[in-house]
Every structure is written in C-alpha cells, then in structure tokens.
C-alpha cells in the first residue's frame, strides 16, 4: 500500500468536481452546460460550486432539452470552445441521440479535417441506486456502435479525476460514462501524478486461472467475485476496460493468453453490446489460448426492471462466480 502523502480520500463525485474545476481553470475555452448544473450543482452535485467560481457564462444552466444542449454545444465547438455537457440521467440521453450520432460524431469527417469536435458528454449511468424508470440504464452500446465517438468509463475516483481532464483535452467527441452507484464510495486520488492514457485498459488484480473483464461499477463487483474465488482456490485476474471505444485489447489478450479463460461482465443488456464485441474479438484473436468458451454475464434482454427487482437484473458477484465456475469446468 502506498504511503504517498499526496493521496486524498474522495468520493468519485467530488473527484469529478475537482477534475472539472481543474479543466475550467486550465483552459478558458472549456465550459460546462446542462440541466440544473448551476446553483444546485447538478442532481448528483458533481458541478457543485463551479458556477459560483467560474460564472454563468462558463457553467451554463441550459433549458431542459437534450437535443438543444448537444446541438448548441456543437455550434460552440465550431466556434473554438470545448463544451462539457451533462446529461442528467442515462435514460434521458435519447432526445439528443440524433445530434450525437448524425452531427457530433460525423462533423469532423464531413468537414474533411477543417475543424475538430472537442465535446465531452457526461452521462451518469447504470443501476444499483433504486431509482425509477429511465434512471438506471446502461446505453453505452448505442454510442459504441457509432464511428466518430470515443467512449470511456472510470471505475475509481482517481481515474475519474484524471480521465475527465483527458477527455476534455481530447480533440474528439468523448462520451464519459459515470457509474453513478460509484459516486459516493471514497477512494484515493493522487493529484500529482498523471494517470494512464485515456484509452488504456488496466489489470487491477492479477491472477492465473481466469480473466474477468468489465467497466464502471462492474469492476468493484468483479473484484468482490475475485476475492470470493480466491477463498475457493481459484486465482482470478481482473481487467478494468476504462475505454469502451476504442477498446485497448493488449492487456485483455495478454491476460487470457495466460489464464486461458475469460468472462466479460456488464450491467447493460447483452445482445449486441460492448461485452459481445469483446467476446467476439477475444475468440478471434486468442483462439489457441482458450481452455473454455468465452462467457458473458450481462443484464437481461429486458427493459431495466422496477427498482425492487434490480438486484435480480444486475449481475452481482454470485452471477459472475457462476460463470467462473462454468469456465473452470472445462
């Protein structure tokens, strides 16, 4: 365990707040826009205090219209600004879908490189918070399918602090998926050392028998599963994707070459998902290393259920371990 004195224990929401504050301070072209992000600080308080510090021109409470938020952010980017849009909840992003997929994702290409689209779209996503319909979804796959976008998702406060700044510094559109169930648990944040590159995946626990891959809130579930498996004599390696598009396959393929078994886990429904894509790629590229079929653990292919049933819908450590058992049976 590190004994660095630069480490602060912060919840992810406050780490993001610190990262946004740093980005606003570093570059006068950065501005935040979204619903309720001003005096309220956003429904999750991620932007708390930032309007008071940087003013209403740089932390903009917008009208309540997602297409309008993304569409005007595109215009601001054409003018040389670096807008960071907050979508209030995962399930509210769809009114902005056309502006994201038909305009934001394609404008750099349409313009032949004459201009960039440095827009970040922050999306609090995922379940485990007991909320009503449209407030617990994982819509990554819709956007991962769209060329021109980059998708990332931090799993720790430290990654959240650094990755939001890296996303804002990127000249491409970045969709920043924030695992909202991880907003509150505290973790160490190192304010002095820069983090890994934005699109690098990372091995967060080493093991020799089976590889688990996931992103966002799923990473803590995988670590929990790995701990249980350890007690049962199964050595589990865990890879935190961090980037969903592009996927950094290096650490994943290195790991599965070593373990010969892999389980890909996610909260999202499984059909045509990020997990499906990773499973297919591992099967193509690591075929001769595999001792067992590539397995997937996902949310069911149903609408996200009412909150009292969410624990049955969302993969937990037991669901992951069930897949680990199946992989180990080969």
């Amino acid at each position, binding site marked *: 365990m590190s004994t660095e004195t630069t480490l602060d224990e912060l919840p992810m929401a406050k780490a993001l707040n610190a990262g946004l504050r740093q980005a606003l301070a570093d570059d006068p072209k950065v501005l935040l826009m979204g619903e309720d992000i001003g005096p309220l600080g956003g429904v999750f308080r991620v932007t708390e205090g930032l309007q008071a510090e940087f003013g209403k021109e740089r932390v903009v409470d917008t009208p309540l219209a997602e297409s309008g938020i993304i569409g005007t952010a595109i215009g601001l980017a054409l003018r040389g600004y670096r807008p960071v849009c907050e979508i209030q909840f995962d399930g509210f992003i769809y009114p902005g879908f056309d502006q994201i997929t038909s305009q934001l994702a394609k404008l750099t290409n349409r313009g032949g490189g004459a201009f960039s689209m440095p827009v970040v779209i922050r999306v609090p996503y995922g379940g485990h918070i007991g909320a009503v319909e449209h407030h617990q979804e994982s819509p990554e796959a819709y956007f991962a399918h769209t*060329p021109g976008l980059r998708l990332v998702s931090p799993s720790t406060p430290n990654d959240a602090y650094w990755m939001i700044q890296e996303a804002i510094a990127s000249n491409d559109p970045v969709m920043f998926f924030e695992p909202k169930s991880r907003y509150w648990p505290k973790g160490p944040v190192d304010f002095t050392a820069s983090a890994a590159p934005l699109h690098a995946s990372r091995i967060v626990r080493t093991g020799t028998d089976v590889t688990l891959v996931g992103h966002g809130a799923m990473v803590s579930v995988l670590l929990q599963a790995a701990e249980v498996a350890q007690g049962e004599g199964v050595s589990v390696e865990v890879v935190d994707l961090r980037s969903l598009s592009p996927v950094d396959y290096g650490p994943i393929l290195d790991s599965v070459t070593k373990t010969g078994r892999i389980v890909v886990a996610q909260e999202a429904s499984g059909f045509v998902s990020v997990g499906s894509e990773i499973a297919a790629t591992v099967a193509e590229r690591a075929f001769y290393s595999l001792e067992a079929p590539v397995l997937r653990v996902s949310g069911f292919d149903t609408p996200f259920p009412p909150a009292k049933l969410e624990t049955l819908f969302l993969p937990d450590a037991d669901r992951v371990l069930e897949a680990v058992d199946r992989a180990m049976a080969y």
Partner: protein
Amino acid sequence: MTDSPTVRFLTAGGAFEPTPGAEEYASYLERIGETELRRFYRDMAVVRRFDQEGTNLQRQGQMALWVPSHGQEGAQVGSAYAARPQDHIFPSYREHAVGLVRGIDVLAIVELLRGNTHGGWDPTDPSNGNFHGYCLVIGSHSLHATGYAMGLQRDGLVGTGDPEVDSAVLAYFGDGATSQGDVSEAFVFSASSQTPNVFFLQNNHWAISVPVTVQSRTPLYLRSRGFGVPSVQIDGNDVLASYAVTAKHLDEARAGHGPQFIEALTYRVGAHTSSDDPTKYADQAQHDLWVSRDPIIRLEKYLRSLGEGDAFFAEVAAEAEDFAADIRHRTLALTPPDKALIFDNVYSEPHPVVTEQKQWLERYEASFDTSPEASSVTKEQA
C-alpha cells in the same frame, strides 16, 4: 411587437409600391444603389442558370441527385447581401445562391451531390465567407447556429458598437423544418441566451410532397413569438424586401438585441430534388401563380423602369451561360475521391481501429494486383 403585415417593396409586376409593413425597413434600402441592384440581378440570374445546369448534369448521370433552387433566388440573394463579411451563415441544403454570394466555388455543391464528398468547402477558410456546411438532417443546424452565436457572445463580438466587429449568425431552413423539434429548441435556446441569431425561413410551400398547410394551421412567422423570438413575414420573391428586412434584423442581432425570425414567402418552382415527381401532388394553378411572381423577372422589370437597357440583360445572360459551361466542364473533369477519404478525419486524433482498417483495405486491394511489377516481385521473393 405588432402583428405586422407582409413586407414588400416591389410588386409582382416590378413596381416600387411598398406595403405598410415595409415602411420601417425603407431606410435600409438607402444602403444600396443601382450598382447593387444590378449585382442582385446578376447573381440571381447566374444561380438560376447554374441550377438548370445542375439538373441537366444529373439527368446525364453526372450526379445521383440534384437539389433545385429555382424560384427562391430573391429570398436567398437579398438576405445573403444583407450579411456582413464577419457574419456566419448556416445553410440547409438548397442555399446555392447564398453560397455563391458568400464566395464559395459552387462546384463544391456538385461534388457533394455527386458523391465525391460529404462536405465540399472549408467554412474556416476566409475565402468561403463563413458559409458553413450543408446539413441534410432537417433543422439540425438551427441549433449549431444558436451555439455558434453563443460563442460569438462569449468572444465579445456582440454589442460593442463597432460595425466591423459586431457579428451575427444567419441560419436558413424551410417550412418542413419548422415542424422539427430542433428548430423549436433553437428558438428556446436563442431566446434564453438572447443570442445574435437571425433565423431565415424560406417557406417554399412544400416539404417534398407535403403542403405547408400540413405543417402549420397558422402563418409560420407566428411560430417563434411564443418562444419569445420576434418575427416578420416578407414577400420572399422581392429581393429588396429580403435585403432590407434581413439587414435590419442582423443589425439588431449584432447590437445585442437578441434573435429574430423572418418568414420569406416563396415557392419551389421545381422539384424537391431530381428524385421527386411534383406531377403527383403539385397544384398547377398555384404553380402558375407563383411563376407569375418570379423574383428575377420582377427585378428586371424594376431595373428597366429605372432605365436599364437590353445590353445589360444580354450581358448577364451571356455571363450565366459562361458560368454554366464552366461548371459543366469542371464537372466532367472530376475524378473519384481517394479511398483514404473513408478513413481520414473520422477522428481528429489517431484511432487504432480506423488505422488498422485503412491498412487492411490497402493490403486487401494489393492482394488483387496482377501487374507485371507485382508478379515479378513475387517471383523474386520466391
């Protein structure tokens, strides 16, 4: 804000008879003289001939699609000349005349519709007059125009009082677009931030085959008022009305007085695109009525009443022919784009997937190379 009657200076017959609604705009005509009127006429006539050439070239297989502008030249040329050089223009996809006035090489429109490019001109190149790219998803660009204007505000380019500095954004869309949520959201956002936007609606009465009466039961210029965006309706086939009204409201936008909505009543004399068939739906009597209100003939009659003679009109006709011939020659000389266009600029920064697929396509294509050079290399390697 009063319910102002339609603004018109020139009657369909070319007589200078301003309507009551035109009075508050009359002083803006003092900015232009006969030189400018001749320029308006010249550009309208050249673009009409360009448009005809585009249709011809499409029919001859040079383009998959053509988007005619016939009939809307008055609305486009007048408003385009009202913009100052520092203003920014966000067109839809039928604003060929606006592009010409702002200085783009309109061959780029041919290249776009031919399938050589999704863009065609660089809006960041000053020689293109801040004319942004065509936008094919109806109404989407109204929000880009609003965001751009929010940027101008933050750059301190609004309301300084310096006419060389103060800037506005002029966005064009059609009657169909007014039904899109994005246009309503553009009104909301522009009103909320009091952006320097002028939204210029060309109501050409048709959204492909659907008449404007399906889009709205009330005159469209009233649409924006509930959003807090003042508005005016003009005779869009009167280039003077288009110029004067746009000039006034761009001035007000640059001065920081917020957005404005202009509805220009005009008519799409031709088809929506070359793939359309107006004989299935268009009303002949309505068509004939609007042809009798033609913006180019109207200005010709006015210019003749001011003393302009046959020589000028013959000169413009010859120039239009030359322009069309030049477009034809350059269209026939176009070559297909390089395959790198598929992959380059999908992202601004390096992307492993795009890089890998670009290299894969090169290897794949090379694997079919049966030229002597390729086979000799194979033999040597063997």
